[in-house]
Each structure stands twice: as structure tokens, then as C-alpha cells.
């Protein structure tokens, strides 16, 4: 078989000294509530470099979507970003005037959402919707914008793009709608693309197609990508680095192999054990994580994961002190656990 140079190989070692395109620092987002406000994003710091894919993993309510919604200044009232910075090429998006921010959204940082139907307006043709995005940022005539829309639809491999450009969203399949949304997101050549569960609503064979497409575009343009997902398989396949979120915080962060092979947070370990894999013995019982994810307005005093944690048991530090995210093992591998040493001592069995 001939050697195929693949996007993954090209990406697997991003320049280590490359500057972050998007850097989120100490982000804190709250929604008011009685008796106490809900802290949905709690002191989150993340960064992603050009050409790199950062996977953000977590369950619903873990704050993974809200982190990026906050960074883009899109938190809906009455929620509010209380603290933190979201630096896009060094400029803090959260301090920009509304008009400036709007200019950058879409042009420099774009987002693709899970549900391809809600991202498209059902009463407008997809071509018109793509043209609206283009013409909001670039001075193009209708004719030229339409040409550009067709080119973009071809770029995302929509067959017969010249005809499809006049279709309404309902005339497209789920996979084609997601392609149209990706076309819209990359229309202005963003530096960062945030893909929020981009394939959760799609079938596996279509999922594979869409993610191949995103990798392909990334390899070509060198954009940074944030892949928000709960699917650890997708992470293994597509990510360069991983951040695991729980209860509004990043609890573990590091290079792909470090997170999967030298896991240093018990929540990440528990996630791996709770999921049925195609390669584990089929008759073995799964090890569920007991209990429920935490309520963001009733976060426990100590570690948010302590009530469900097999390491915490009744350890006092777990119940009383919230652990900070700090280096575990190596400088690039961070864990927010008082007892990550226990996991290192357990040995890194192949999971």
C-alpha cells in the first residue's frame, strides 16, 4: 500500500512554540438565581494554536459549550461573564465594543452547532443564508456573493452545488445541512472554528464524512479547531490535545496520549470505564459513575466530583478544599485532583 500523507500526521506535532490563536484565561460566567447564582463556567483557562485540534470533553451541564459561548460574548441575559479574558490573536474579545466584536465573530472565530436544523433559517434558501454571512463582512455584489456561496458548497462536497444553492434547509438531509452550516462557518476563513457536538445528531457513516471534511479544511487552511464532544472515540481520532470539564471547571488537560494513557483525574478514569467500547469484552459489566452530575448552583464546597469519586471516599481534603488545576507528571499535563498520585501509583494499565 502506498504511503498516504494524512492530515493527522501533519497535525500530530503542532509547533510547540506556536502562539495560541485563542486563549481563554480565568473565565467565570454566572447566571443569577435564588438563593445563590449558578456558576456555569468556573475559572476556565484554555488555549488552542493554529492548525491544532483541542477536544473539550464533558457531560451536559459541564460548561463545555458555555465556555465558548462566553468567550464569543454570546451569553444570553441574565447570564454574565464576571471575570476572565478571551484573547483572539492577542485581542480580548470581551473588552471589545459590540460592533467590533460582531466584526470578528464569523470572520475570525466561528461556531458550528450540534443541531443543523436550528442553525439554519427554515424560510430562506441556503444560498441566501450563506450570502448574507459573506455580504455582512465583505463588499461583494449579489452575483459575486452567490458565486462564492456555490464555491463554498462545493468546498464542503455538496453534490450539484449550483442547484443546491437554491434549496431550502428542509430539502437537505441532516448530513447535507451540517455541510451547509460548515460552509457558512468557513465562509470568511476564520482562524478558529468551534465545532460543538457537530455530529451528535448524525449517523455514524455521515459522522465520519463530516469529521473528515473538517480535518481536510483544517489541513488546508491551518485554522485552529475546538471540538466539543462527549464521545471519547472522536477525541482519540481527531484531537491533538484534550481538556476534560466537570462542574464548570477544567479538571484535566493535556496532550491526547497523556490523557488517554496516563490519566491523572478520577473523573476521566471513570468516564473511560463507564462507556461500552467496541474492543472490550462484551459481557463485562460497565462501571457506571454513581449519582448525578452536580447542579451548578449547588456545587459542593470541596471538589465538585468528590460525591461521585472512587478516590475521594471520605477524605477530608476532597470534601473541604476545591483542588486547583496544576501540573501532574509533566508540565503540559494538568489535573485538578488532590490525589492524582494515587492514579500514577495504580499503574497506567491499558484501558
Amino acid at each position: 500500500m502506498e504511503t498516504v500523507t494524512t492530515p493527522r500526521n501533519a497535525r500530530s506535532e503542532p509547533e510547540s512554540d506556536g502562539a495560541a490563536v485563542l486563549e481563554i484565561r480565568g473565565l467565570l460566567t454566572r447566571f443569577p438565581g435564588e438563593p445563590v447564582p449558578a456558576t456555569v463556567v468556573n475559572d476556565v483557562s484554555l488555549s488552542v494554536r493554529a492548525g491544532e485540534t483541542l477536544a473539550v470533553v464533558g457531560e451536559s451541564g459541564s460548561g463545555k459549550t458555555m465556555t465558548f459561548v462566553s468567550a464569543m460574548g454570546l451569553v444570553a441575559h441574565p447570564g454574565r461573564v464576571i471575570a476572565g479574558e478571551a484573547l483572539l490573536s492577542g485581542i480580548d474579545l470581551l473588552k471589545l465594543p459590540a460592533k467590533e466584536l460582531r466584526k470578528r465573530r464569523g470572520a475570525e472565530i466561528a461556531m458550528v452547532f450540534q443541531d443543523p436544523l436550528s442553525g439554519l433559517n427554515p424560510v430562506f434558501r441556503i444560498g441566501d443564508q450563506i450570502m448574507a454571512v459573506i455580504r455582512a463582512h465583505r463588499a461583494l455584489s449579489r452575483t459575486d456573493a452567490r458565486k462564492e456561496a456555490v464555491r463554498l458548497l462545493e468546498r464542503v462536497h455538496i453534490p450539484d452545488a449550483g442547484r443546491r444553492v437554491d434549496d431550502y434547509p428542509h430539502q437537505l438531509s441532516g448530513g447535507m445541512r451540517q455541510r451547509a452550516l460548515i460552509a457558512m462557518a468557513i465562509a470568511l476563513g476564520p482562524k478558529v472554528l468551534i465545532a460543538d457536538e457537530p455530529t451528535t445528531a448524525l449517523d455514524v457513516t455521515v459522522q465520519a464524512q463530516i469529521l473528515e471534511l473538517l480535518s481536510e479544511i483544517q489541513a488546508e487552511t491551518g485554522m485552529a479547531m475546538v471540538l466539543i464532544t462527549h464521545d471519547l472515540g472522536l477525541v482519540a481520532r481527531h484531537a491533538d490535545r484534550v481538556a476534560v470539564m466537570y462542574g464548570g471547571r477544567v479538571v484535566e488537560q493535556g496532550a491526547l496520549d497523556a490523557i488517554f494513557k496516563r490519566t491523572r483525574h478520577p473523573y476521566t478514569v471513570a468516564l473511560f470505564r463507564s462507556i461500552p467500547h467496541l474492543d472490550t469484552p462484551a459481557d463485562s459489566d460497565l462501571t457506571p459513575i454513581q449519582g448525578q452530575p452536580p447542579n451548578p448552583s449547588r456545587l459542593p464546597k470541596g471538589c465538585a466530583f468528590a460525591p461521585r469519586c472512587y478516590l475521594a471516599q471520605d477524605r477530608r481534603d476532597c470534601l473541604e478544599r476545591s483542588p486547583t488545576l496544576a501540573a501532574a507528571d509533566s508540565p503540559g499535563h494538568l489535573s485538578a485532583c488532590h490525589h492524582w498520585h494515587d492514579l500514577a501509583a495504580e499503574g497506567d494499565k491499558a484501558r
Partner: protein
Amino acid sequence: MTDQPLAETENAILELDNVTKVFESAGFLGRKPSHAVRAVDGVSLRIDRGETLGLVGETGSGKSTIGRLVLRLEDPTSGHIAFEGTDITGLGTRQVRKLRQRMQMVFQDPYGSLDPRMTVRDLIAEPMIVHGAPAAEIPARLEQIMLQVGLNPRMADRYAHEFSGGQRQRIGVARALVLDPSLLVLDEPVSALDVSIQAQILNMLRDIQRTRNIAYLFIAHDLAVVRHISHRVAVLYLGRIVETGPRDEIYERPRHPYTVSLLSSVPVPDPDMERRRNRIVLHGEISSGTAVPAGCRFHPRCFRARMIAAQGKGPTIERAGAVLPVRCVEDDPPLSGEGTHQAACHFPLAPQETVDILATGKRGAAHARNADPPGYAPPRIAGSDI
């Protein structure tokens, strides 16, 4: 192997014999109906007592329609469905209602399937009241069921909205179990739940099956989940079973190219294995039930047909933007194979071929993603079948 020989039928709880369901669109202003959807097209299957049959397929494969046909929520256009040895195809409404004591359904959406104005007690007792259980028996039964599905009986007076998604799904299962059915139809029962909660529900379903010897028709799109819970698996494509067999056969030695490509599409949470694995990116998307391709219904998307044609084995024809074997384009292959593992393919894969294609073995050199299987023309994602 968990499979029983097909001949032994007294153990069968459910049997579908060549069942077809066609949905016709209503005519408009006296005009003839414009199109008919063949949602289920000649499906035969059986489930034994205490057994789980996993039904996998993509959107539009007809898997949910099969569940609804089994429960007689839809009437089949042709074919027969037998439950506990009785043909239920022609039963009237009253008899069907009685039948539903013995077979129950668990739905995907734990939010939409429970009445928000009813307490857990009412929700779980409702099926017993509807089916005329003696009032004196209800409280004891309620407590027993709640314990079995892992709910604290003291929570019986709360409303569904006070529960999390996982707990609501437990309530849904309790409602289904309370009449002591012999078959549960579970339609995507965990796909709306968080990953950490899915395992709780899957383990509970397995425990319940062990203690009650209840049979499951488990409908899902998640291949890993289906593998975890099923004894046997049937893979659906456009309303037809394209491969069926004991679980390990399907997952370890799949023969149908569609099953192989499905399995290759599922990412494995292991970076090393992901680097090693080949993946088959299918051509295009599933066709619609209104325009089922002639011949083998999978041929427009099939990588295997392209491989076979490229190898020059037998006559070929140009179709769907590719050169394909004539047989694939013209003949609809029936399910065939030795024993219980059957595939509907003219050119089923041999076990070693499957290993080579999936490269799940230790082929260190082939870490290229998307590396094409030998003899395989590069995919044109822009399939002409859309």
C-alpha cells in the same frame, strides 16, 4: 455461542415472517398518491425467551418502524408477526390491548414520554389500573418495581420533572415492567442520556433480564451499546436486514460490506488503535425509502462492489458514478450463509479480508487514516445517489 438453532421454535417469543410496511402519502385533491415509502421491506426475525436482539441501522433504515409493528402501533402491509406462538397480525383493538400486557415499550425521550402532572406513583400504577389489576395488589407491586429499577420507593409522590434524565428513564422502564411482560421493545433507550448515566441504565436492563428472563428487542444506532447488551444482532439497511447473527460473529467477523463500513466508522477511544485503523468513508448517504435502488440496495454506496469490479471478476456495468458488478446492480441478494450468521451480499467478505480492511489487528505500518483497502477506488464523497 449464545444462539439456538432456528428449528427449535417453542422457545420463540417473537417471530416476524417476511414483514413489509409501506407508507403511502395521501393523495391530494383526488390525485393519485405521489409516492410510497417502503419503510420495512420483507423482514424476518425471531427473538427467544430471555434473549436480546439488537437492531442497528441508520436513520431511515426502518428500525423504529419494526418496533412499532411488533407492538401493533402500525399494521404491516404484508407478512405475519407471531407473539408467543400466536399470529397477532389480524387481531382487533381489544385483543391488541390485552397483548400489550405481555409486550411493552420503552421510549427514547425520558422527558416527553412521562406526563408532567402525574406523580411517580400514578405513572407506574397507571398501566396496572388500565389493565384491571386488583387495587389491593398495587402498592406492594409498586414498591417492588421501584426497587428493581433502582428508585427509592419513598420518592413515589414526586413528579417526573423532579428527576434527572437517568431516573426518568428508570420510571419509564418501571412502567413497562409493572405488568410483567415477556418482551420489551426498547427504542434508543439510552441515546438521550449522558454517558455516565448510560452505563447505569444498561447495567440495570441486564440485571432485570437475568432475574426475569424477559426478552428485549433493543433498537439503537450506537454500535458499542448494542454490542454490550445484545445476544444476537440484526443490521438494517433501507428496510431490509442485510446481516444477522450471533453478536460476536457480527462484530468480529462481519461479512456484509455495510456492516464492515459501519464498524469502521465508529471511533475507538484508543489513540494508538485509531492511528492504526483503516476507515471506509462511504459514498453518499442512505437513499430514501421512496427510491430504493434496484438490485442490491446498498450498491450505490458500496466499497466492496467497486473493489470486486476493479479486480475484474465477472461482468461490470457503469452505475452510480462507478464501475460495479452487474449482479450488484441487477439482482437483489437474499440473506444467505451457513448456520445462524447470514448476510445479504453477492460478494460477502471472508474473515481475513475483514481483518485486513478494518486493520484492527497489529498492522503497524498502516497507520494512515483513510488508507484505502487494496484494490479500492478512492471514494468520491459526492455520491450521485443524493
